[in-house]
């Protein structure tokens, strides 16, 4: 199997990027994929707080940390790397990856690459998408509309979107449904993966007694997300199994 890099990024903060990354890690774990994660929110590391066992905090602007991620791709036992890009650094990171020749290797078929682009609800996000498009041509590009924290109305719909890009992008649209606020807050406080919250596990592995109702909300929500990732064939695309699935 080819090494896979899945990046999760956003130009704006507060669109729930790290939350989306967490759902991806839960999804991949449920599919028995071995995953390592890089948290580029240097030096804070929100993702690391929830997935400490598999997450390393990196400063993506330094060559040393770029090497840590890219140079180990072929040698690492773990074939899937998920990188949570710091808000605002998406464009810069894509530029850097181009400069170090990463995308040439992807084009040569050495690695598989996917980008999950978490976008805000304003039409401004269409410009964001336009900026990213040249980098992801021929690669797996997921536009993630995130409804986790609110049900804000997206100012743009598929029609506007299609008119805007006139079919230049073969992007896949992914929708993350809303999660009840109280359930979301409780998971935040617990500081554990969503799946552990559902299973009543604490970060030290001990059993806890989370609210039955809140666990129910998180379980249902995770299942909806899993269905959505299945629907867009996230795993098949990353594993190059698209043809087989079709």
């Amino acid at each position, binding site marked *: 199997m080819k090494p896979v890099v899945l990046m999760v990024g956003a130009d704006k903060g507060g669109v729930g990027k790290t939350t989306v990354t967490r759902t991806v890690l839960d999804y991949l774990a449920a599919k028995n994929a071995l995953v390592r994660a890089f948290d580029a929110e240097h030096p804070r590391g929100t993702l690391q707080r929830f997935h400490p066992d598999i997450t390393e905090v990196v400063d993506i602007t330094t060559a040393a940390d770029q090497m840590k991620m890219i140079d180990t791709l072929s040698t690492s036992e773990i074939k899937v790397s998920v990188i949570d890009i710091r808000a605002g650094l998406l464009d810069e990171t894509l530029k850097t990856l181009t400069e170090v020749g990463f995308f040439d290797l992807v084009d040569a078929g050495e690695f598989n690459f996917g980008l999950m682009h978490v976008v805000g609800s304003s039409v401004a996000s269409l410009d964001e998408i336009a900026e990213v498009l040249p980098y992801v041509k021929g690669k797996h590009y997921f536009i993630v509309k995130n409804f986790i924290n609110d049900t804000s109305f997206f100012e743009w719909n598929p029609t506007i979107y299609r008119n805007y890009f006139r079919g230049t992008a073969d992007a896949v649209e992914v929708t993350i449904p809303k999660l009840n606020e*109280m359930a979301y807050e409780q998971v935040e406080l617990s500081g554990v993966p969503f799946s552990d919250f559902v299973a009543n596990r604490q970060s030290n592995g001990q059993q806890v007694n989370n609210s*039955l*109702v*809140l*666990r*129910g*909300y998180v*379980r249902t929500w995770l299942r909806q997300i899993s269905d959505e990732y299945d629907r867009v064939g996230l795993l098949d695309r990353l594993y190059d199994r698209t043809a087989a699935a079709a």
Partner: protein
Amino acid sequence: MNTTGSGFSTGSTIERPRLPDPQSSPPRPSVAAIVASLHGRAGKTLLARILADYFILSGRRPALFDTDATERMLHSAFPDDAIVVDLTEVRDQMILFDTLVARSAAARVVDVSHHAARKFFKVMQESQFAAEARARQVEPVIFHIMDRNSDSYEAARLLRERFEDCALVLVENAYLGKVKDQTRRSTGYRAFEDHELRMTLPCLDPEVLDVVEDIHLSLSDLMREPLSRGASGGPLSFDERAYLRSWLGRIFRDIHRVTRAIEARALSPAPADPPS
């Protein structure tokens, strides 16, 4: 009462019920009774009250939940014991289900208003309440009150399918009238032909029923108090009290029978899990 023999004679044909040995018998599961019906005015709150009084008379003071945040009938009947929950609020859903599932010997009774039923059963399903409750020695039981129409049987059938791991007691309320012939032919009705867990609310004289429906009348007090209560006896005569007691006695016996059957089933070794 049978008074044959001294009570010590070995030849006695009357066997006294054997008391369980507290050392050897496993702890009894506590019952979480969920009272529901498809339509309103089917006698839910009345049955919830009777269940509450049954548990009170059995020495197990129950926790009571009233899901009708507007009418609050069960709460009016048991102001000290009933908690009113508004299931449109997540906080109240937590109060209800997290208490229902708590490991405790206390019985619990929920009066599921037909307005709140859809939400109640949705949360019940999504939280996997029945499985979690049973893991904590709490036996959830749905008491579904039927009426003459086939849709009430169909609703019960769907509930039984949806909550396979939860006991369902079919409650026939004689006061609502005889089941229609058309209903008897329906698939919903026939799905319950072999259903064992069932009980009846027998008919009651309409005048006495009015008194029973007065939520301030405590049914457990009625069972405990002397039949002739003199001036403080309220609107009921001696005969009416005796009549009402025998009516309640029948229902209590039914409740006792079904809850014991459910407890026994919970305590017996689980059948082999079907391959998943």
